[in-house]
């Protein structure tokens, strides 16, 4: 289990992380969401020992993360960067070795990884000769080459094409299934929704919502009812007691109920006014949950 325990960080008088606590189980994929400047990168850098926390600590299986432990973490920094003039394969082998692998093991691990992530250029080329998308894939390979026990990735999907996204998601899910806890930050919330078992939304250095996407939905009280009625008389929904019309577009209305249990009364009213084509509770998307959580 990877635990962030009351991690607090401030620069001068500015608080960047405020008593941040959350945990990721082994084999869990954790999506770290938050607006720009919310503190995601700082939290990840603290886990990697690049920034020192003012208070609190990050633990792996109950032990404070030290340098020896850090070698077993796979990290992809937000600010991408490898040696521009170093050859791709040499580079990955080097980073594998810096994480404690033998030269042969690092080399043997790097080769299939490059292939799987779809770096379809010669691996003997200097990194700077590759396209930006391929450089990004090599960066990911550098985080994965040493078969890390924990993965911490800052915006790993940004800059990848849909095929690249799928390839990376595939690799991450595979590592996840092998028991590796994966934390990644992303602004692509549909992707987070699709991939993650658990989501944390951070705002102003504080964790404002946390749990599985379903749990977050449950917690979200005011769910919306989407009703499509053909040949309805205008304003039919507003006449039903305890119903607020959020929006109306042609024959489609989006409603909010004071008491969700009275949805059948709404259905009855709809049937009286015309032909009901669609009637459903609409699950809020993670984007909507995110907006709600950040606005609160």
């Amino acid at each position, binding site marked *: 289990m990877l635990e962030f325990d009351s991690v607090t960080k401030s620069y001068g008088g500015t608080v960047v992380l405020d008593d941040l606590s959350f945990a990721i189980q082994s084999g869990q994929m954790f999506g770290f969401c938050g607006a720009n400047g919310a503190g995601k990168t700082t939290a990840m850098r603290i886990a*990697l*020992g*690049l*920034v020192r926390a003012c208070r609190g600590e990050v633990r792996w299986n109950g032990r404070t993360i030290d*340098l020896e432990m*850090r*070698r077993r*973490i796979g*990290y992809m*920094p937000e*600010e*991408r*960067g*490898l*040696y*521009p*003039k*170093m050859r791709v394969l*040499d580079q990955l082998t*080097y*980073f594998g*070795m*810096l*994480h*404690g692998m033998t030269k042969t093991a690092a080399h043997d691990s790097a080769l299939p990884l490059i292939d799987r992530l779809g770096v379809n250029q010669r691996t003997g080329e200097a990194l700077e000769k590759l396209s930006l998308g391929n450089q990004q894939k090599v960066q990911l390979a*550098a985080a994965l080459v040493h078969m890390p026990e924990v993965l911490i990735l800052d915006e790993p999907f940004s800059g990848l094409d849909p095929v690249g996204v799928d390839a990376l998601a595939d690799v991450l899910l595979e590592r996840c299934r092998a028991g590796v806890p994966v934390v990644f930050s992303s602004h692509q919330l549909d992707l987070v929704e699709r991939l993650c078992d658990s989501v944390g939304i951070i705002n102003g250095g504080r964790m404002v919502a946390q749990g599985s996407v379903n749990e977050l939905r449950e917690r979200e009280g005011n769910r919306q009812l989407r009703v499509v009625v053909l040949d309805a008389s205008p304003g039919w929904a507003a006449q039903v007691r305890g119903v607020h019309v959020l929006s109306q577009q042609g024959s489609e209305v989006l409603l909010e109920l004071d008491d969700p249990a009275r949805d059948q009364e709404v259905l009855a009213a709809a049937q009286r006014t015309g032909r009901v084509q669609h009637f459903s509770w609409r699950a809020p998307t993670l984007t909507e949950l995110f907006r709600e959580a950040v606005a609160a």
Partner: protein
Amino acid sequence: MTSRTVVWLVARREITAKLRDKGFLLSTAFILALIVGSAVLPVAFSGGSSTYDVGVVGNTGQLEAAVLAQADAGGLDVELRAYDDTDAAKSAVAAEQVVAAIDGGQVVVDSSLDPALERVLNAAAGMLVAQERLAEAGIDPAEVAEALSVPPLEVVPLDTDAERNAQRQFIAFLGVVVLYGLMILIGQYVAMGVVEEKSSRVVELLLSTIKPWQLLAGKVIGLGLLGLAQLLLICVAGLAAAIAFDVLAVPGDAIGAMAHVIGWFILGYALYAALFATGAALVSRQEDLQTVLMPLIGILVAAFVVAIQAAQNPDGVLARITSLVPALSPMVMPVRSAAGAVAWWELVLAVVLNLVAIALVIRLGGRVYAGALLRTGGKVKIKDALAGS
């Protein structure tokens, strides 16, 4: 993983990267050519004797024979050309076909006469006159010639070490030039490498798995080993060229002086590389590098100038003091050592002081380096870097 493994991994990467760098290989070849050239060029310039073309007016066989005989005795190469009259000889001098023309009791020259040639011509003229007068007095010309041929005086030098000392100083001077060049070159490599890691941001990935000092040490050691290899190559090539072209009288002295230069390269390089790396960590772009390196290069230039002065006056007050000052001693001390005027305690003191300086710079510079590495953007202030480490 032990620190040694990590440092060696970093060092090896630096070495491999440089050995694949065409710029580095070219600069090595250039330095080698320069050193071999400087060992061989003096031979090419001074060893080859020059020929004097001298004109003679009229048919004076005796004079010609006398000039050639004197030139031979004086070690000069003189070639004679005959002219019919004074005007022809004068125009030949004016056209620089001949450096001088003998016309009866006169020597016509363009502006001045080479002193060596003047002695030859005067001696020849004097001998001719003596022969004539003795012949007039009735003495057999053959006897005259024999009586006048005197073997040259044998030269017995009292100061046998003079040439040797001059040679030692020349080697020390050359050593300082090489030291200066290599320290600037390798120091810049260290600085550029630090900035490259910062500007490419690879440093964040590196520091998530190794400590700043391990990165610094690996870089300095790796590039230092390359510099040392270059230096050894230069010494061997220079020595081989000097021996092949017979420039060195005593190779033993040269080897001793080179040993000093190599030892001081290690001490000087460690100090300057740590300083350069610390300075480089403060900036994020290669363009900003020169601004932070300027004062450090200034110290190196000062050390170079003082060392050149010390080569001329190894026992002077300036040389004696600066050969003890850290950062200056690596350049000045090998010069004084080569001149053979260093007391053992001076050498020990200089080494100890330099080691203390290295320890201080690595300690303080290492903190600045660690604190500044992850700060990108403008120039980081030393104070902020220390606070951040």
